[in-house]
């Protein structure tokens, strides 16, 4: 009984295992290129007879950018297997794209297809049309004279067409030098094609057309030992290229023609503890991408501590390095630093200049200094016989305590012209002198022309007489009024007639003021001086004082 139960349980377990549906899928090609068509095949094995699937693809929701379409199914009646084919186009961007799980409805049951992942990569050689093709890799920018431009021709194969070789590569371009980097084309990293690398170097400015022609060998279909169907396919590239000189704006003085991206690798010294006078070799290794072989070695200045002798240099082409070598001879003992090596470079992509600096290296120089250190710099451009072309120079021995009475010490080197007190004193003296000179000149002029002062005094006397006359008129004193008027007229007329004032009569006044009323003048004179002879009534004078005052005003105007 127990055995029967065990057998029954085993059968039930087997039945339950058979109840699982098997779903597998395959994408061709396994890795697709961006925008490339692909084929998806889904194979299903079930425990029941499946029959034809219905409404396939209704539930499929491909990821964004992917097109996926049900293209057909294979099934046989009475079997538990079914094969469904889908065709699609991969997205344009690289990456892994997941087709979500979806259901397929058969007459007997519904089967769920799990998630399917599609890998899209740009490195694949497959393309839409499946044909082999050539691509040109060349920077798309303005180039510069003397620049090293790396380029390559990529011959990409496909599933249907395999690129087996290339020949006849020609370059037609004026103003460029063209050089292949290797004799034979090298295989691509993914093994589906070939690459031919080359270098271009512009040798003049302007716009010119670059033309690259060649032929690639293609094998079509399946190859065998007895038949290798192949064909030649030519390719041609034409591109217009602009070439300029390296800009002068911002170009450092120490730019020696380096164009590209460089960095300092190492600085090597042959001996870190030489003796005085023992030459050592300094090797500065420059690495990077650019025209390494065209760079003029930078000059370095030894200063007081080193003699610098240019040395031969070598370049290891395989590692894209350039070595600048110098021979240094220490002149003094002690802890010295090698001269700094500075190189200006031009980056054609950022259009900017950079400075590459090899840092000074510390060297401990042993030995003793010569009795007299010659501070004259060795001229590297001198001839082999030692004849120098430049004038030699050196520091003179200092004499800091040399004193003369004419060179007194100062705390601040300030020019006298910046002293405010200096200029203030000079300006004050000049102003004083100018004023004094002006006074002297005015006084001299007045002494030469005395009539100016006489008339000035006469005007003042006239004004004073007019004021006194007005006061007398207000005080109803006709005698004082007449005396003031007569006094003013006499003083004013005397300045014009150059006569003695007290000696003038009314007739003399008429010479100065011809239109003055004689009666009024006589009345005024008699009133002013009548008391000396015989007094006369003078009260009538005050009836019209304005007429008498008008005489003074007219006389003052003439002065």
């Amino acid at each position, binding site marked *: 009984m127990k055995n029967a139960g065990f057998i029954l349980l085993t059968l039930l377990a087997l039945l339950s295992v058979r109840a699982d549906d098997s779903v597998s899928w395959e994408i061709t090609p396994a890795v697709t290129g961006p925008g490339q068509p692909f084929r998806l095949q889904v194979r299903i094995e079930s425990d029941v007879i499946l029959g034809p699937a219905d409404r396939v693809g209704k539930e499929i929701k491909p990821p964004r950018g992917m097109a996926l379409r049900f293209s057909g199914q294979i099934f046989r009646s009475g079997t538990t297997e079914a094969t469904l084919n889908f065709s699609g186009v991969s997205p344009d961007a690289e990456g892994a794209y997941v087709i979500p799980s979806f259901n397929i409805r058969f007459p007997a049951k519904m089967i769920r297809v799990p998630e399917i992942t599609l890998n899209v990569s740009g490195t694949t050689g497959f393309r839409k049309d499946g044909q082999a093709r050539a691509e040109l890799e060349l920077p798309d920018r303005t180039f510069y004279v003397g620049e090293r431009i790396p380029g390559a021709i990529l011959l990409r194969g496909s599933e249907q067409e395999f690129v087996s070789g290339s020949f006849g590569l020609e370059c037609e371009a004026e103003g460029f030098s063209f050089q292949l980097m290797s004799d034979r084309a090298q295989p691509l990293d993914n093994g589906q094609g070939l690459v031919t690398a080359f270098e271009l170097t512009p040798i003049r400015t302007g716009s010119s057309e670059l033309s690259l022609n060649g032929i690639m060998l293609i094998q079509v279909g399946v190859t065998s030992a007895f038949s290798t169907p192949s064909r030649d396919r030519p390719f041609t590239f034409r591109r217009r290229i602009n070439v300029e000189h390296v800009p002068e*704006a*911002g*170009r*450092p*003085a*120490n730019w020696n023609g380096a164009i590209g991206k460089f960095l300092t690798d190492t600085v090597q010294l042959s001996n870190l503890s030489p003796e005085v006078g023992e030459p050592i070799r300094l090797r500065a290794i420059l690495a990077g991408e650019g025209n390494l072989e065209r760079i003029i070695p930078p000059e370095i*200045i030894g*200063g*007081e501590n080193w003699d610098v002798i240019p040395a031969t240099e070598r370049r290891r082409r395989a590692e894209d390095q350039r070595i600048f070598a110098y021979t240094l001879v220490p002149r*003094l003992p*002690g802890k010295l630093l090698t001269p700094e090596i500075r190189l200006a470079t031009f980056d054609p992509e950022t259009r900017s*200049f950079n*400075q590459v600096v090899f840092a000074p290296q510390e060297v401990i120089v042993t030995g003793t*200094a010569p009795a007299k250190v010659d*501070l*004259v*710099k060795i001229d590297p451009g001198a001839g082999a016989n030692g004849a120098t072309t*430049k*004038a*030699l*120079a*050196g*520091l*003179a*021995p*200092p*004499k*800091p*305590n*040399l*004193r*003369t*009475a*004419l*060179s*007194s*010490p*100062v*705390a*601040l*080197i*300030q*020019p*006298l*012209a*910046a002293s405010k007190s200096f200029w203030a004193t*000079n300006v004050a*003296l*000049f102003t004083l*002198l100018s004023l*004094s*000179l002006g006074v*002297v*000149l005015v006084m*001299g002029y007045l002494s030469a022309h005395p009539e100016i002062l006489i008339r000035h005094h006469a005007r003042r006397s006239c004004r004073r007489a007019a004021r006194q006359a007005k006061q007398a008129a207000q005080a109803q004193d006709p005698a004082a009024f007449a005396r003031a008027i007569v006094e003013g007229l006499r003083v004013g007329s005397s300045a014009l007639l150059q006569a003695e004032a007290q000696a003038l009569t009314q007739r003399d006044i008429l010479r100065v003021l011809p239109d003055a009323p004689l009666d009024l003048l006589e009345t005024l004179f008699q009133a002013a001086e009548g008391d000396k002879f015989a007094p006369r009534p003078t009260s009538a004078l005050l009836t019209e004082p304005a007429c008498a005052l008008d005489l003074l005003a007219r006389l003052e105007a003439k002065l």
Partner: protein
Amino acid sequence: MKLKFLSLVFLLLSILPVVAVPTAGEVAYAKGDYAVAVEQWEEQGRRDGLTAPLLSALGNAEWKLGRKGRAVLCWERALLLDPRDTVAIAGLRHAQTAGGIERPVPSWSENYSAFLRADTWLIIAGISFWGMTLCAALPKFSRKNTSPWYQRGLVTFATVLALSIPGLWGAHTYAQRAVVRRADVALRLTPTSQGEPVSGIGEGDVVRSERGFNGHTRVQTAEGKTGWVRAGEVEAIWGGGLPANLDQKAAP
């Protein structure tokens, strides 16, 4: 007679150079310890004042230490105090030929003014101006006929004044020089920190400074290139004593 003789002897003694006992700075310099020599001479300069020989010696020591900017500044200032200081002249010539220092070529008026100090030119011009003025003004004060001596003095002072004017102009243009104190200074097209670099000038190069604007100074290099540099990157040769310590922040 005896008094005149004594005066002449005193004058000769005052003009003749006086060499004192070697100081600690000189001893250190002779031993090759240039850092100590600089310290000693700077202390001496602060204590006793600056002279042309002291500044030129300081320039030599700074040059030995590789501080080009300070060295050239010391030599230039030594020449301001004594245009014929042989140590400073040799140092600047050495810096130009062996050290790669760029220095503007002096104009004819600057060469003319180098015959005397700038202050001496100004004093000569001032004396001649006042002499000429007094010779012209004194006859006016005296109200007498002009004496022949006044005429001769007027012509003499006017001649001296005319001869001193080129010296004054040369001293004025020479005073506009400045020394680059920083390494790898960019000469910019505009007085802004983002201005396009036109060219580069190195430490110790002498430039002609013009006007200032926006924290920058417009300078003209020895090659004739004109541009702007930051005000702290150059130091004028006039108006200072010892070279400024650029590592020390300025007082607020």
